[in-house]
């Protein structure tokens, strides 16, 4: 029949542009950001161990303001004489470590609270929701600021203060995901077949809300890194002279017009890391919700 010929003719090869585009929306949309993140991780955590870098603090003023590609200083030194590359790498360590730990805490603690709240429902749920509402009502930076300046600076304190912001956010997401899962038939049948609530939550609810929480955590790494950067920028959070991308940007402001690289380098690293986290989180979310 005439129609059959039309069908045969349809299987042409797509044009090269279309092919590349199809790849980017294929598995590559997960691979590229993941590769970038891996690179950054290796650079920040592996480089100081592998290559002997000068210390990020305690440089002498005599060596200040060396340009890039000088001896021993690949990216030059900053206004205090510290090696820029070393500071970026160590600053990355701090920022990434904080962001990841905050999100892990948020995922575990906040996820549990939210799941329990959504699962138990009724009075417990209403109570927990009100408490969460109180936390969420604060603009993020403001809450963190208030707590951070009370607790002081340093990595550990920053982690606690950022967790105060992260746990309620995870709790809310976990709760809404749990509510959606709860209405489904398999949960009811699991309840009917016995088993306590804790077992049900672990075995039935958790695997179903996990993808959503994990993608939220990935996006959250970017968010927390930005907030921590802001905190350090303002002088709270990680305090000088220890480097963090945020306080490097703040310090670099002084030499903004003479040596813009002091600001642009940590900014680009921050931007790149956050962008890759967001791209990866988005790609995973698309992949997992399409299922």
């Amino acid at each position: 029949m005439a129609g059959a010929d039309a069908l045969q003719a349809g299987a042409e090869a797509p044009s090269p542009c279309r092919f590349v585009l199809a790849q980017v929306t294929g598995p590559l949309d997960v691979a590229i950001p993941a590769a970038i993140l891996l690179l950054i991780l290796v650079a920040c955590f592996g480089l100081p161990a592998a290559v002997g870098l000068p210390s990020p603090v305690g440089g002498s003023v005599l060596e200040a303001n060396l340009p890039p590609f000088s001896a021993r200083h690949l990216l030059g030194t900053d206004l205090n004489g510290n090696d820029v590359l070393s500071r970026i790498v160590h600053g990355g360590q701090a920022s990434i470590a904080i962001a990841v730990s905050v999100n892990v805490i948020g995922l575990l603690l906040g996820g549990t609270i939210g799941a329990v709240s959504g699962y138990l429902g009724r009075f417990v749920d209403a109570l927990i929701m009100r408490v969460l509402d109180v936390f969420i009502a604060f603009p993020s930076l403001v809450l963190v600021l208030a707590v951070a300046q009370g607790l002081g600076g340093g990595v550990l304190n920053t982690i606690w203060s950022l967790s105060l912001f992260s746990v309620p956010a995870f709790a809310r997401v976990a709760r809404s995901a749990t509510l959606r899962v709860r209405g489904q038939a398999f949960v009811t049948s699991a309840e009917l077949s016995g088993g306590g609530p804790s077992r049900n939550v672990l075995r039935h609810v958790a695997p179903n809300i996990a993808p959503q929480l994990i993608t939220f955590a990935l996006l959250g790494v970017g968010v927390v890194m930005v907030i921590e950067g802001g905190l350090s920028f303002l002088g709270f959070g990680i305090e000088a002279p220890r480097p963090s991308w945020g306080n490097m940007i703040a310090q670099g402001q002084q030499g903004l017009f003479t040596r813009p690289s002091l600001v642009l380098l940590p900014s680009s690293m921050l931007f790149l890391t956050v962008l890759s986290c967001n791209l990866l989180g988005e790609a995973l979310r698309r992949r997992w919700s399409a299922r």
Partner: protein
Amino acid sequence: MTGIRAGSNRGGRGDRTQDGRVWTLWSTRPRLPHCVAVSLVLRRLATAVPVILGVSLLTFWILNLMPGNTALSLLGADATAAQVAQLEAELGLDRPAIERYLEWLGGLFKGDLGRSLASGQPVSSMIAERSAVTLELVMLAVVLSTTLAVGMALLAARRPGKTADRVGAVMGMIGISTPSYVLAIVLVLAFAVNARLFPSIGFVPIEESALGNLRSLTLPTIALAMPYFGVCSRFVRGDLVEQMESYGYITTARAKGLGSWNVLLRHALPNSLVGLVTVIGLNLGPLIGGTVIVEQIFALPGLGSLLLQAVNVRDAAVVQGIVLVMAVVTLLATLCVDLLYMLLDPRIRYGRR
């Protein structure tokens, strides 16, 4: 063709049909009685009250955990213990926490937020002075982000998968990945060459010069609005494209013979507005938080920079006051969003029969 009369110009309240019945063109359907609608609103407000109380409690509690001693930092590091104790007594910092909290709470009902520990000025007047700047900044940021986001989304949804769509996706991604402080500094760097176009610091009040006012707020607004724009744009684009692709009423509208722009503007966009309003409201919190950094960088005399100053001198009263005000404003924004949602979506307004 029987049964269809071409509409003739009849005018007047009641038009008569052929059989003499009078009918009107506006609705005589039973609506929700007013008291029911108002009670819905009141019920929503009532759930906000315990949250506000909780917010005040949390604010007070956090700020009075401060290990740093306010009196000590005010007097300087070399003050004697006696001087510190005396200042504390003066400022009333030696009373038990509960008593101070209740006193503060009582003051709140009268609109009195206490007095600054550093300068003695009433906190409420300090806040009132500074809030105009922050308010203008936030409003400009919201207006800029929303119009850009909606405009871009319309262009993207018109031809999904083509240039406008991809550009919008990229800009949205960049938007949410760029912190405001980074963008602020980059903007300052970029415009420093031509300092006459936009000032890198300083604020011109609107009474002095409207144009100067806008100029001084341009860079801060762009820096503040970028992440907000990213979030809004991603949502609206996704929602609009989803409406156009997978909702039946769009096909009905196209089958009527409407052109793409008309379908977008008159059918898809109003249905997206509901979601857009929610997104705008829910992200207002981070936007307000962002004013802290942006005002600092551009030296704008707003609430954010006041907060920073107060935090640096550990002026608990001022910090409490500002944090409370910001939290309450964010809460009210969420409330307004809920109410607007009720207004915009007729399914919620009229309920299902």
